[in-house]
């Protein structure tokens, strides 16, 4: 696979995952409960993991 294609694919996947995490937080908020709060916290952790994976190559 060409480098440019791989980069574009990676950017696309990261954008999708970030959008999914934000959407998950918004959707799970509608129902009150520890389980739903847990999923929201997982989504928050997912966003931070995404940021860490983007940042990894610069460390």
């Amino acid at each position, binding site marked *: 696979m060409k480098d440019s294609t791989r980069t574009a694919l990676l950017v696309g996947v990261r954008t999708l995952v970030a959008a999914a995490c934000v959407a998950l*937080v918004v959707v799970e*908020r509608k129902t009150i409960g520890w389980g739903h709060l847990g999923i929201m916290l997982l989504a928050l952790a997912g966003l931070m993991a995404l940021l*860490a994976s983007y*940042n990894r190559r610069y*460390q």
Partner: protein
Amino acid sequence: MLACLLPALVLFAVFMVYPTVNVFRMSLYTWSGFSPDMKFVGLDNFRHLIDDEQFVRAFQNTVTLLVVVTAVTMGMGLFLAAIMTRQKLRSRNFLRFVLYIPNVLSVVVIAAVFSAIYDQNNGLLNSMLRLVSLDSWQQVWLGDQKVVLYSVGIAMVWQSLGYYMVLYMSSMSSIPEELYEASGLDGASATRQFFSITMPLIWQNLRTSLTFFIMSAVNLSFVLVRAMTGGGPDSSSEVLLSYMYKQAYTNSSYGYGMAIGVVIFAFSFLVSLLMSRATKREPLQF
């Protein structure tokens, strides 16, 4: 050396360390806040938190505001800063001034402004929607359980956006123009320049502001919720700090309020620490 540090250390201990330790200590007691009777109950306050649905709702609202407001504010702040720095807009100074004004205003004034904007009958938002024949989009912005939290979130974004935009603009302005010229000659697009030049060179600033924003968002949400909705309707806009305040000072459950305070402390500290770790990198010199 120690003598020089002593006044600062004493102030830090009296105003930071002692109150923080006291919050942890008080979370182990039941106390009304006024009477001399304090009863040690161990971890009972924390056990009650597990069964408290209002606490879970407030926690969920806090996480929602933290994620949505941070993503929107940081994203828009970066985007606007990049546009205003790289594009030679005529009205750049005016736009910067307009966007920065909310940061100078008191949060309570902002709450009053947005309460007027969201007014059901004579508010700017519903009037505008009526004007463009979008009557069905009209809402009771601060009275509908589904939208009230996002109405508060918009006020939070409006308050913070200008500050972070100006912060990023100052970092972007210090990047040498030659870097953009050289990459332009190599055929780099504006997007490529942003991600390969601008972002790495302002990263330290971005990192600090992100960590700082997470902590300030928790505080800001309290003031806005308190001034705009009081946590209502039916606790649907309650956030952790407003719930803690309600328990400690309105409900006279000081110990229980402090237990919520401990959870807020642990949550803010953990998120800020993880964010700081996730964004750590070697600073670039230019």
